């Protein structure tokens, strides 16, 4: 049960090995809603992680993924992109998607400020849905707010059906980097900050007030 990146290295093999490189890797998403964490992965069926976690597959039998995930960029490019994750609420007998949709709307307070953590899962041949390689951390995002939408689509048997979907917007850790930091220099502020850091008295800014409206000519 080797570590994920060790397995990937083994699959890539040596630089002068000319066999095909085949790795079955899928993304898994952990939505840490307050009180009700949800685990999803992009595939069919239930995935069992090595730590005992269960991840729900969002691809239906016809190969359609009901969970739309955006392409993830490297956040260091300074753009602080907003990522949108959409779940189209599927219909199945005995339940009402409208009820589920309304119930989600009523609980939307669970979203703000919580984390989305993306993992990668590696499947080796013959493992089925219980990979022996632990899932590796991939990216972390902070959820901002959900958006709810309904639309009418033409169903598979040519009848009109109502489709409900939930979209969550999220940003990565680079959010707010370009904000101007608030703060000022003043004797009282400096003394208070120093006191918070454990310094009893910091007189470094005592002459600051006398510097106001002064012009100094350097020779």
């Amino acid at each position: 049960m080797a570590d994920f990146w060790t397995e990937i290295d083994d699959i890539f093999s040596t630089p002068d090995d000319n066999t095909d490189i085949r790795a079955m890797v899928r993304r898994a998403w952990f939505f840490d809603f307050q009180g009700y964490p949800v685990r999803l992965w992009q595939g069919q069926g239930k995935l069992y992680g090595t730590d005992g976690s269960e991840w729900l597959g969002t691809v239906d039998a016809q190969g359609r993924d009901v969970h739309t995930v955006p392409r993830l960029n490297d956040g260091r490019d300074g753009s602080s992109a907003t990522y949108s994750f959409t779940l189209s609420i599927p219909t199945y007998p005995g339940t009402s998607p409208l009820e589920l949709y309304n119930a989600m709307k009523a609980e939307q307070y669970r979203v703000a400020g919580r984390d989305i953590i993306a993992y990668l899962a590696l499947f080796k041949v013959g493992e089925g849905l219980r990979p022996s390689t632990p899932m590796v951390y991939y990216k972390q995002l902070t959820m901002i707010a959900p958006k709810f939408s309904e639309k009418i689509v033409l169903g598979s048997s040519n009848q009109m059906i109502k489709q409900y979907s939930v979209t969550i917007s999220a940003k990565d850790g680079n959010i707010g980097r370009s904000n101007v930091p608030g703060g000022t220099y003043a004797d009282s502020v400096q003394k208070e900050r120093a006191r918070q850091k454990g310094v009893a008295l910091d007189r470094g800014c005592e002459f600051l007030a006398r510097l106001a409206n002064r012009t100094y000519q350097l020779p």
Partner: protein
Amino acid sequence: MAITIEVLDFPNLPIRSQLYYAGGSTYDGGFSTGGVRIGSPEPGGRSFLEIQLSLQVNEWNDPLVSWLMSKTNGDVFRVRLTNTPQVCPIVKSPWHNKGFAGFNLPWDNDQNWDNNEPWDDDYVLDVTNSPLAGTTGPIHVLNGTTSEGAPFGQVLKIGHVISFDGDTAYMVDKIQYNDAGTEFDIWVNPPLRRSLSADSAFLLLQPFFVGNITNGEEFRAAYEASNAGYIQPGRILLSEVIV
């Protein structure tokens, strides 16, 4: 609050053709070093059962096809697979005189029963390990013996379809017998939907498939006056459902 899904018994209707398959799907996997586009296989997958009913002549007494054609709303059915070559030939198939007739239990004078057939049975085999849900195997099974004590031998092969108690059907992907032929390990496709327990799980050689009808449009046909009420429905495609 758990959802209880009602599972209906698929009506016992004469059929013309049947196929179980679990083909899986692939995603675009990029290019190989040789410049060939390869597919990245879907690790999970779903199984399907295709049934073509034959001309139904009993609708005047029992309009089961009429009922079935309105059950395309996602209702879940439990279907007993007919004895095609996909089912281990433990009993004789009504399609072909193929089967191990000696496995069935005759009267104690070695004669057939009143219906002129030997006794039919659900042949079940014991599972002796506890494979977890999501794995494809190995599932360790004790091979069976006939009512007269003769061993089955290597009758279960790859390509046969089996199911476990209370569960849906799986394809035997790999099988390995021990030297004596009394025990074997199988690997299944798609992966197990439920964990099996060595104490209670058993394997059915005549499997059940649990699924819902996904092609209502194609399946529907009308009753015709020119056919005197006999009806030939279209192809039924059932997709696996986990209940």
